[in-house]
């Protein structure tokens, strides 16, 4: 079977779903955060694929920005997680339930 846009997109969608699954199921904040990176990467893959099949570099530009933004986000996020860990000695989401109802 000839590999087309659909195939790339399917991979991207499956990766996206894998990431989402990680966010939902894992309980370590760091792993959750990694899963979120997976989701972003899935989007990146879709964008690159579209970019190629649309004869248009805009998608790739978008990926460029997403990677940058993701890096910034990761920096802040990790700092936050570190700060929280210092406070609670845990990176486990089930310990993060003082705010509820």
């Amino acid at each position, binding site marked *: 079977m000839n590999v087309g846009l659909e195939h790339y997109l399917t991979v991207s969608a499956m990766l996206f779903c894998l990431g989402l699954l990680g966010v939902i199921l894992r309980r370590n904040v760091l*792993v959750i955060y990694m899963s979120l990176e997976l989701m972003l990467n899935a989007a990146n893959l879709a964008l*690159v694929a579209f970019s190629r099949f649309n004869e248009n*570099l805009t998608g790739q530009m978008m990926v460029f920005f997403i990677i940058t933004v993701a890096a910034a986000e990761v920096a802040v996020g990790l700092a936050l997680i570190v700060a929280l860990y210092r406070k609670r000695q845990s990176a486990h989401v089930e310990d993060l339930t003082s705010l509820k109802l």
Partner: protein
Amino acid sequence: MALPDILFYLFAFLTLLFGALVVANPFSRNPVTSAMFLVLTICAMAGLFVLLNAFFLAAVQILVYAGAVMVLFLFVIMLLDLKEEQRRKINLFGIVTGTGAVLGLGFLLTRTIWGGDLNQAANPRVIGDTKALGLELFTKGQFLLPFEIVSVLLLVAMVGVILLSKKELK
């Protein structure tokens, strides 16, 4: 089957496999393992990028993502000295519903993708090399402004990281 197609299947398989191992690794619950598999996923994806002629992005993917971002992750894991995630009670209901939701999303996305209305150019010739992207970025106004905003964003991230992680003054 041509070589690019074989390579696609190879990289796709690796991407998904490593991705799956990031999320759920039957052998290790250690975050370090997840991080390492994430690096591998990213590398495999860089292969897909190459197949899609996005050479610059493939490089960035490995340099920035696998090289910098993931190092940050590993650094934090080491810093926090995270041990293997201790086993807690498995919430079967949560797993089932969560998996259900994700499967639902997967179904919907797949259904959309295979809906058969993708406009595929017959013979696309887009080369995403450094020069092309550089020209794009610095000649077209529409990318200039986001570029500048991202700089502010990076500043904010810097300030934020410093604020959040500097030693408490007392």
